[in-house]
């Protein structure tokens, strides 16, 4: 019984829903504020994301006639649940609570939001949303391969430090910063770009492109359902940079001064994402596919080879 209660507390309140949402809304304000500063504007006040969500909660929910009602309503909730579990697992891993194989669970949970987006937009019965869903699907196919390869690089590097089989847990991975080696740095850069695509930020906001698909995957959503999507995106803004910090940058150590350094790493990744977002134009879907499969894929193959050589020869910096 106490275990159930504790798990519920973890998921719903402390590192889970309430906490991650608060951090996520703050992070999405940061995205807009830094974007504004880049354009020499003042930008929105700090409560802006909260006001947006509250307003959406009070608005009418329209369900399109040709749409599939159940899937249309369930999709955002499924996406939110996935991100919620992902962020809970990641926060617990920074606190040292983890199990063998949670890396793989995290990888699966990271696909949830895109999957939910594809489901929800196809269920809405709008041609714009269908085009958006198709693009999102291609994008997922594009970035999953380099992301998995980047993770393999980290696993190879971790294998040198821990017991065989133990390297599949997030805590073991976050013991050392694998970015401090040639292959690890390559893997970090590629994973950062994959996270950019997962967040749906420029240059990879192809599925949501406002100018030609007018909202793309989200076009038919309104009111509280749109608010759930916004909350999901806000939580992804916490979970995905946190994933990068845990996997590549040596995690967040929750004790003493190193905690501040851990927060610093998180903010660093977030600011990197925001700067990429604000200094690039949107790419076409074929350009994105070529970029991820050809360039990122090749870079990752090289990184895997380097990491293996480093592992067998015992060269730590490779």
């Amino acid at each position: 019984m106490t275990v159930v209660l504790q798990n519920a507390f973890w998921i719903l309140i402390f590192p889970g829903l309430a906490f991650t949402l608060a951090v996520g809304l703050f992070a999405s304000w940061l995205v807009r504020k830094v974007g504004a500063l880049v354009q020499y504007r003042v930008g929105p006040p700090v409560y802006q994301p909260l006001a947006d969500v509250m307003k959406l909660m009070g608005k009418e929910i329209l369900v399109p006639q040709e749409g599939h009602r159940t899937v249309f309503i369930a999709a955002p909730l499924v996406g939110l649940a996935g991100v919620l579990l992902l962020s809970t697992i990641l926060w617990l891993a920074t606190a040292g609570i983890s199990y063998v194989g949670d890396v793989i669970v995290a990888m699966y949970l990271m696909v949830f939001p895109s999957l939910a987006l594809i489901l929800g937009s196809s269920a809405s019965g709008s041609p714009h949303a269908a085009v958006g869903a198709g693009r999102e699907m291609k994008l997922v196919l594009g970035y999953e391969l380099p992301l998995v390869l980047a993770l393999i690089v980290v696993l190879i590097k971790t294998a040198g430090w821990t017991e065989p089989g133990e390297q599949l847990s997030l805590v073991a991975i976050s013991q050392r910063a694998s970015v401090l080696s040639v292959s690890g740095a390559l893997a970090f850069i590629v994973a950062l770009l994959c996270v950019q695509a997962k967040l749906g930020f420029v240059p990879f906001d192809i599925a949501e492109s406002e100018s030609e698909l007018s909202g793309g995957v989200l076009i038919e959503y309104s009111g509280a359902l749109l608010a759930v999507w916004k909350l999901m995106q806000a939580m992804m803004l916490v979970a995905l940079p946190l994933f990068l910090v845990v996997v590549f940058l040596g995690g967040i150590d929750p004790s003493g001064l190193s905690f501040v350094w851990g927060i610093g790493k998180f903010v660093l990744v977030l600011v990197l994402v925001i700067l990429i977002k604000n200094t690039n134009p949107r790419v076409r879907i074929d350009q994105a596919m070529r970029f991820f499969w050809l360039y990122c894929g090749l870079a990752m193959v090289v990184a895997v080879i380097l990491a293996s050589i480093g592992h067998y020869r015992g060269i730590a910096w490779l």
Partner: protein
Amino acid sequence: MDWNLWALKKSVWVFHVNTGACNNCDIEIVNLLTPKFDVERFGIKLVGSPRHADALLVTGGGTRQAAVRLKEVYRQTAKPCIVFCMGACACGMGIFEKGYHMAGPIDTILRQVDPDAIIAYVPGCPPKPEAMIMGVVKALAALQPKEKYATERMGQAVVANPA
């Protein structure tokens, strides 16, 4: 304090509808959204779909062709929503008043769909971006919490298909 109303005033997402404007008003609206005026300070944001919108920025006098589309867009907008008539044309057909092709003005067209539509007027030919900001601020200030604006109007009958 009415939190729904507060949130609505602090976060207005606008959708731009052209119903046969001479394009000058549209240029001024695009101008309004540039970094110079920075309306994101007030939470105003341009969105691509009427489903996301809280306010429709309507320009132009409402031609017969556009009137049908305007009604459709209004029906698709998630209520509560405010309609801003931007420019002399939208307020009262302006120089196109005697035109054979006019169905407007905008408020007459909208009242056919929803007799209680909330409509604000910003005159000028074209109105300056400063005037538009002033219009939006005044209209938002006029929204009363006692009308239970955000909740009560929800689910209210909008004529399904008057055409």
